[in-house]
């Protein structure tokens, strides 16, 4: 038994020599990146779903319909970026609705009491980011499970809003906001859509091309690994919640302008759809995998379906039923795209394999080195 033979047998399992064919594999490896395939599928369904709307109404598809979907999707999409980022980092956020409401109501109240619109918006966004930062600090530094922490901040904020707004069930939207998000158009396209396009660009850049975005992916892949790699995990985590809060704040401002005012239920309908859009968009609820491009696809898909249901005589409830079904479908779809190490596994094969129940060749036993992750599912 010579050293020579063992070297050969040792490297037998590794395909491809170094440096071989880098160009064709670039595209393929891009496609193989976790979440990319999923995002493509979701967008493909959106593209098919809009013309398919004709089934429910002869008025569809139309430019008007697409415009509607884009505007309605914009509010959800902005909030979903926040939720998506938190989930990507391995956390969870239940404070979406309260923060959206808080931001809108704050801006409305500030301007109603004679403040300037611009300052009102800035302060409202600061309040929203601040609430997010509180959640983040609780999760990152006090090690409270994100589920509980955001539940608590959401509850506290909604209680505080109720108390502080006693006697003011609704705050009118500042005129400038009404003009921009309500009626404004540029080149025939609603300002909201322009704004959303800009937001998506900034968000994608932040997520994919900046150091902070990369750190978020890293933390979501494993808090322990990130800590051992020398990342400031706590600061990154706290920062993620603050950014998320900011996004909810922006959504709150947009909604206030769009609906001409902010009442205490402004954000109520956004928690579940936002999480749903994130899941449909292919973000793994365990963290570390997914893209905002996919999430926007998920947002548009849900909005299209909602729009279609509204055009029929079906009860509004069916919209929710369909949302739930779509979320489930997306989850099952992501089963097929396989986990790390496992390669691609068909659903049937996975079912059969479940005898093993994920008991791999090496059981991964994270020992409590430093701060362990205390999130849901951990």
């Amino acid at each position, binding site marked *: *038994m*010579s*050293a020579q*033979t*063992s*070297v*050969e*047998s*040792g*490297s037998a*399992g*590794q*395909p*491809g*020599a*170094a440096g*071989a064919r*880098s160009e064709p*594999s670039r595209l393929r*490896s891009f496609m*193989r*990146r*976790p979440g990319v395939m999923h995002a493509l599928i979701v967008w493909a369904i959106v593209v098919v779903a809009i013309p398919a709307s004709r089934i429910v109404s002869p008025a569809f598809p139309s430019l008007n319909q697409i415009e509607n979907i884009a505007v309605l999707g914009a509010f959800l999409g902005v909030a979903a970026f926040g939720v998506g980022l938190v989930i990507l980092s391995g956390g969870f956020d239940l404070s979406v609705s309260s923060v959206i409401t808080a931001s809108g109501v704050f801006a409305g109240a500030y301007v109603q009491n004679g403040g300037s619109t611009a300052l009102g918006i800035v302060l409202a966004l600061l309040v929203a980011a601040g609430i997010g930062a509180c959640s983040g600090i609780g999760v990152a530094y006090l090690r409270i499970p994100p589920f509980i922490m955001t539940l608590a901040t959401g509850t506290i904020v909604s209680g505080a809003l109720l108390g502080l707004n006693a006697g003011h069930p609704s705050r009118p939207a500042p005129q400038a906001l009404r003009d921009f998000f309500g009626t404004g158009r540029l080149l025939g396209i609603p300002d909201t859509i322009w704004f959303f396009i800009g937001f998506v660009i900034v968000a994608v*850049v932040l997520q994919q*091309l*900046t*150091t902070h975005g*990369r*750190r978020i*992916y890293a933390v979501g892949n*494993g808090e*322990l*690994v*990130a*800590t*051992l*790699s*020398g*990342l*400031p995990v706590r600061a990154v985590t706290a920062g993620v919640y603050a950014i998320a809060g900011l996004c909810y704040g922006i959504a709150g401002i947009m909604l206030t302008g769009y609906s001409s005012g902010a009442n205490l239920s402004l954000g109520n309908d956004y928690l579940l759809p936002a999480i749903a859009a994130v899941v449909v968009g292919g973000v793994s609820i365990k963290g*570390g995998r997914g893209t905002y491009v996919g999430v926007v696809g998920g947002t548009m898909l849900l909005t299209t379906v909602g729009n279609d249901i509204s055009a029929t005589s079906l009860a509004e409830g069916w919209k929710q039923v369909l949302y739930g079904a779509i979320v489930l479908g997306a989850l099952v779809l992501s089963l097929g795209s396989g*986990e*790390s*190490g*496992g*390669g691609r596994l068909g659903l049937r094969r996975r079912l*059969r*394999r479940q*005898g*093993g129940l994920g*008991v*791999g*060749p*090496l059981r*991964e*036993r*994270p*020992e409590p*080195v*430093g701060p362990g992750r205390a999130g849901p599912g951990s």
Partner: protein
Amino acid sequence: MALVAAQNLSKSFGETQALSDVSIAFEAGEVHGLLGENGAGKSTFVKILSGVLAPDRGAVEVDGNPVRLGGGSRSLASISTAFQELSLLPNLTVAQNLLLPRLPRGPLGTVSRRELHHRAGEILDRWELEVPLDAEVESLDLATKQRLEIVKALSRDPKLLILDEPTAALADTSWLFQHIRDVTSRGAAVLYISHRLAEIRELCHRGSVLRNGAVVGQFARGDFDEDSVIAQMIGRSFDATFPPRSQGASEETALRVQGLSVADSPVTDVDLHVRRGEVVGVAALEGQGQRDLFYALYGLRRVVGGTVEVDGEPVSVRSPRGALHAGSGIALVPEERKVEALFLELSSQKNLTVPIISEIAVGPFILGSRERRRAREEAKRLNIAGDALERPVGRLSGGNQQKVVLAKTLLTGAKILLLFDPTRGIDAATKLEIYDLVRRLAEDGTSVLVYSTEIPELVGLCDRVYALYEGGITGEFSGESLSEDNLLGAAIGHRRHGESGSAAGPAADPGHPERAVASAESDRTQESTT
């Protein structure tokens, strides 16, 4: 006819072929040894035999009848296993653990505590283990847990008893060996997995050697030759493995640790130093505080006493971030690469650049070209396949993953490397590459502190080795005195600090340390039980 026969078992995980076409027959009354390096496929084989994993191909027959695999361990009543990673539930009591999943029920259909304790007590008595029945397993020490795991497997009266590294945490093996003999005398077979050759030699009638998921050799009691077995395990003769040592390290001390004590760990009053360009090893049996020592130096454990100096300057390392910035930098290659070192969903390239993310960015923006260049350079140095860079690191083979871990650690530019078991679970070829790499690094002035479960590896690789026992340094060996026997003697607590020289444990046979373990350990038990 064999009592239990594994036939042509194959299993792959993604791209890694964990087991290919393995057939082993177990005869009634025999102890069958299974040898192999970490990652050779032993665990996978055990999991398939015990019903936890389904093989891709192949079958297992008991008394000539094929059994269903992959249906969970309860589907295979005739085979029971004491798992290396222990199948005990920490939040259940000793009695509950022993009788899971079929706890005795009382008239109300609830679990009868009295009957449970009665039966569990009988089991403990029969196998001579003394543990409180209602203690939660969490509160037991590691050795007791290991014994309990073994008793749990014994108590099922299986036709095939599988013991996977049953002595990892046991100082005294006589209790275990005696019961193994009981089991075989009743006509059952035992599959005994250990990397301690002395145990295999003492206990086993026959044996098989696994490498890269295939059976590469078999032996019987009469013809057990340790040199050839080791050669089969690692795939080449032993001496050819290690690169030559460098021509002496510099006199400058890169890392000096004095009187180090670590909170919540056995590590107390540890002195050690690593010179610039030196490769220093730490030899220790399982659980002597080596992990705490390494992790404390990397800022992951609370230091409660002592000083750490880097390049002559005292440093206080409180986090990995702090360690990477301490002096010329301290970096760690941690124990469990999948849990501690790799972002499994990210590509290898992104894994590599996470620690140096600010170096490849302008302001907040990552420069893709700079990232690719840095990653490629490092990948080339470590011989990582080009297309591996673009793929999620979780889908690479163990060897490539470990190279990515090393590359990532090296990219930090740290001049002091802490390597915790860097060759765990990887193929022999990659091991060789890693040895070469470590040597090259040392020649370039990097200082390396390395722990390995394989003591021969330390002897071959290091300039100097400390032995660690119960959290304290029990010996320091270099040059002539750096031998496996000396290391083992010190690693099992035989000699105190400062002593060094020849003579090791009584049954020691120069050349291969495992031979000394059992006898030396029983000595230790005599000492510690007084």
